């Protein structure tokens, strides 16, 4: 046994189980459950005028069909607005089942319960819904034109208008020696986890309790939301996130209609009920992100220093805004990146369209922000005829300016203050990694062979580890097993490894003894959720604090037993010993025994803690007044505000002169998330993020047609990159600790995806000598850009 320490790139402890196929995902549970399928709207916008289930009566195995009229109490109300905001003046959220009007393809109209999914689908096919089509509103132009309304009581289709300004932008622009205007847009995409959503609920009629399993990023909040909807005491409801096959943001949205309906049906029917979303459903019935168009005005001096930046953008929030304004707020506040802006004004309109609602997808507004900022910086360089690196260098915030107050209010309602980071050092490192200075030679050599190469650079700052808090609980059993609980859930991040590394390090125990449970309200009831690159920062810190409580208690008990001072003790490999005299020692598991005075000897360890065995001090109670039995501790971490990670990507692309295909030759990442608990896992996060960044830059989009039909709602048509399209990622790390958290951690989960569109657009623009203002960029679109530039004919 070895004590694995914080900072080692050990193999993920969860992988052997997952690779052997022993994962327990939502659909692996509940083999005895009734199955649910939904009747979903085929129209983008329509009035439901009738539901005829007569033909479904003949389906053998049918159990129930529910429509809005069947819903009781609070299930009749719209689903909650999860994150209210003063600027969100016209919030609209969906009903669990369509009440009268459907506003996107895939909106649930009726719920079918049957003995199995095949039967349920057969019944779904036989439910005839009468629709009176209403005019669709697709795309930001149609939404802004507002000739058709998504919600008749929301004029202009405007859910919210929000403005933040730091300094006097108009004055700055008026005084600037140079100004530029740009129009920049990013298309819709979606998280698209390999495992779609799913909910499984068991009602225990004997004790009136509900257990929900959901493929979610927020089991604690699902628990409270469902309890509230069903009118149950929260104490009677438990929610568990089992193995979750990816989330990438879409599963932070909750409670989904399905998440409320399935437990309701389980309770109503007194039977276990399960719904597993299929891929076709997920494309249209879950949520999307990214669709935004931005108008930029920038003023700068002859060195390229930005004196004023004015950004107005439109955010396509889809049919409803259940998750509030988080995505456009993040775009607004993260757009400045690592740059010191003279004055900055950002305003957005969040607009309704008759498409799937929008909630965060990994990166959450930052890929758009980074694309806008980095295209702007490149445009400044091009305008001045200056080097792109030089313009960035002129604008970078310097390490000695930390903490740097951007003057903006971040997504958590708190000031966006960069707590730490060394942006110039990051830039130097990424330029070295990609070989920036050598690129002209490379380009010339390629050109001699008739090949077109381009190089791009993109920088970002990412607010991570948003509050309000997470908690951790560490418990040492008398066997020496260490149980670690935290409330937030896991979707592949390797929490069972990194949280165990933290506890092994803090407590001085072998990592093999540490067992981590996440996302189970039975184990830890207080939590927020896994999003915003926050799990390591929030739960990691809380778990470290909890482990320190356990360590202090263990040392106190051991000090008594060893007749030593606690200050002279250390814990090594699960043994408490006197520093310098390792033979004076007591195993931690024995300390656990001593921590819990017993009357009954149920095993050998317990025997040592019984009343005639323990040394007795007749003058003291077995448990001191301010003490508790057991060797365990619980603590919470609640940061003052978010911590800001940062990084820079650079890539070299080759564009095919004939086919306009873009090939990524090299991709370099320099990444600073503070001290890395496990560098291997951080790299894995970066690699996955880059894959999604490449996807967003070159492949993935939600191809809604003018009628609001999602034309590419399958993996045949929605292009997800394979390993063949994802470049080898070369990484370098800085580890600038955050002063805000006990371990100095910053988040790493989303970083890899953020600069994808920005850096690839920059490289393609460099290769082609064209302006790239919209992403993703398909070969067809690049061909058209060449045509527009007169370089090719259509």
């Amino acid at each position, binding site marked *: 046994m070895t004590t694995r320490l914080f900072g080692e790139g050990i193999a993920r402890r969860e992988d052997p189980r997952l690779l052997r196929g022993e994962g327990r995902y939502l659909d692996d549970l509940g083999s005895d459950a009734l199955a649910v399928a939904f009747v979903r709207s085929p129209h983008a916008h329509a009035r439901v005028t009738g539901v005829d289930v007569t033909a479904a*009566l*003949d389906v053998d195995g049918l159990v129930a069909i529910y429509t809005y*009229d069947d819903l009781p109490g609070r299930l009749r109300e719209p689903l909650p607005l999860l994150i209210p905001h003063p600027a969100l003046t016209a919030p609209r959220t969906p009903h669990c089942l369509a009440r009268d009007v459907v506003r996107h393809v895939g909106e649930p109209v009726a719920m079918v319960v049957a003995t199995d999914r095949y039967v349920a689908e057969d019944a779904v096919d036989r439910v005839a819904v009468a629709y009176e089509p209403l005019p669709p509103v697709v795309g930001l132009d149609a939404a802004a034109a507002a000739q058709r309304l998504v919600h008749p009581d929301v004029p202009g289709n405007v859910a919210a208008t929000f403005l933040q300004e730091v300094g006097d932008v108009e004055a700055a622009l008026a005084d600037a020696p140079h100004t530029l205007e740009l129009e920049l847009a990013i298309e819709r995409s979606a998280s698209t986890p390999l495992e779609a959503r799913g909910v499984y609920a068991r009602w225990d009629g004997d004790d009136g309790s509900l257990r929900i399993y959901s493929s979610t990023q927020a089991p604690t909040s699902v628990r409270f939301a469902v309890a509230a909807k069903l009118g149950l005491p929260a104490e009677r409801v438990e929610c568990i996130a089992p193995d979750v096959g990816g989330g990438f943001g879409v599963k932070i949205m909750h409670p989904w209609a399905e998440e409320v309906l399935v437990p309701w049906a389980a309770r109503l029917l007194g039977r276990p009920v399960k719904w597993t979303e299929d891929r076709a459903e997920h494309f249209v019935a879950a949520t999307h992100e990214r669709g935004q168009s931005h108008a930029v005005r920038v003023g700068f001096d002859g060195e390229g220093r930005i004196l004023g930046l004015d950004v107005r953008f439109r955010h396509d929030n889809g049919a409803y805004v259940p998750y509030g304004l988080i995505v456009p707020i993040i775009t607004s506040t993260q757009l400045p990146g690592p740059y010191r802006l003279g004055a900055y004004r950002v305003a957005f309109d969040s607009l309704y369209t008759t498409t799937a609602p929008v909630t965060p997808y990994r990166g959450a507004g930052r890929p758009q922000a980074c694309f806008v900022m980095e295209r702007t910086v490149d445009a400044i360089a091009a305008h001045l005829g200056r080097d792109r690196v030089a313009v960035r260098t002129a604008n970078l915030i310097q390490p000695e300016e930390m903490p740097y107050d951007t003057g903006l209010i971040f997504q958590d309602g708190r000031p966006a203050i960069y707590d730490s980071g060394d942006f110039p050092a990051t830039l130097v490192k990424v330029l070295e990694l990609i070989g920036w200075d050598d690129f002209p030679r490379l380009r010339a050599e390629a050109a001699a062979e008739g090949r077109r190469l381009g190089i791009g650079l993109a920088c970002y700052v990412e607010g991570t580890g948003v509050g309000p808090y997470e908690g951790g609980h560490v418990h040492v059993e008398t066997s020496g097993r260490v149980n670690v609980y935290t409330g937030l859930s896991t979707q592949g991040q390797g929490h069972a490894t990194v949280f165990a590394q933290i506890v092994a390090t803090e407590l001085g125990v072998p990592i093999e003894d540490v067992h981590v449970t996440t996302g189970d309200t039975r184990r830890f009831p207080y939590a927020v959720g896994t999003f915003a690159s926050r799990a390591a920062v929030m739960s990691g810190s809380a778990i470290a604090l909890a482990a320190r409580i356990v360590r202090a208690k263990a040392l106190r008990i051991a000090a008594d037993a060893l007749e030593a001072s606690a200050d002279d003790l250390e814990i090594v490999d699960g043994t408490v010993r006197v520093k310098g005299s390792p033979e004076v020692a007591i195993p931690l598991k024995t300390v656990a025994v001593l921590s819990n005075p017993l009357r009954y000897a149920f095993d050998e360890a317990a025997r040592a803690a019984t009343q005639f065995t323990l040394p007795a001090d007749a003058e003291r109670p077995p448990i001191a007044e301010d003490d508790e039995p057991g060797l365990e501790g619980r603590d919470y971490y609640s940061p003052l505000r978010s911590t800001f990670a940062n990084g820079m990507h650079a890539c070299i692309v080759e564009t095919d002169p004939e086919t306009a295909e873009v090939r990524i030759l090299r991709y370099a990442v320099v990444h600073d998330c503070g001290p890395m608990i496990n560098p291997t896992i951080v790299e894995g996060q970066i690699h996955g993020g880059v894959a999604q960044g490449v996807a967003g830059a070159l492949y993935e989009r939600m191809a809604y047609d003018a009628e609001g039909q999602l034309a590419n709602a399958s993996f045949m048509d929605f292009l997800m990159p394979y390993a063949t399209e994802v470049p080898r990622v070369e990484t370098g790390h800085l580890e600038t600790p955050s002063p805000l958290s006990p371990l100095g951690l910053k988040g790493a989960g989303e970083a890899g995806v953020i600069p994808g569109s920005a850096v690839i657009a920059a490289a393609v623009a460099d290769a082609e000598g064209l302006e790239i203002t919209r992403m993703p960029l398909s070969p067809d679109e690049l061909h058209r850009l060449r045509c527009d530039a007169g370089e090719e004919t259509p």
Partner: protein
Amino acid sequence: VRLTGTHELPAAPARVWAALADDALLAAAVPDCREASSGPPRELTVTWGVAALGGVYRLRADVSEADPPAAATLHVVVEGEDGGLDAAVHAELSAHDGGTRLTWQADAQVTGALATVGSQLLAAALQRAVQRSLDALAAALDGADPAPPATGHVEAAGASGEPARDWGPLADGPHTGGGRILLAALAGALGTLLAAWLAGRLRGRR
């Protein structure tokens, strides 16, 4: 659950009214009527089911108002292992195109497991039941053999003749217990209900 229906019957209102009072005719017309006892209130035992639920249901009909052969208002209680219905029913008969137009509406409070299948499904099952029973009654009035149903689904289920308790529990899966949904039984139920109510009322007035 709120239900409405309109049906054409090939006999004058007076004859329809009388037919509904005829135990023998009713028993023949309603394939799933297992027992009928004269009232008032009239009581019937029918085999009935919807979705995965089904079994033997006892029906009781009390007539609160009647205007023969034009209208009747009834209170109907249905009870079975899976719950029941408590319904206020109003039916009207009018001369129409040489025959009778029967229009009816019912507001039913549903209890027990029956209340868990969803109101649309329950309504659809009841609507179809009434349609089929009245089709059978129409056939009887026409002098035709009432047994063959109009839509072909009734026979299989109604003829299965399995006792209710042999219908396995829900967990048995879709392929046991033959005729789980037993639409014919349902048809019998509602058709019988209407018939029983009207007949019961008639009998009470004699």
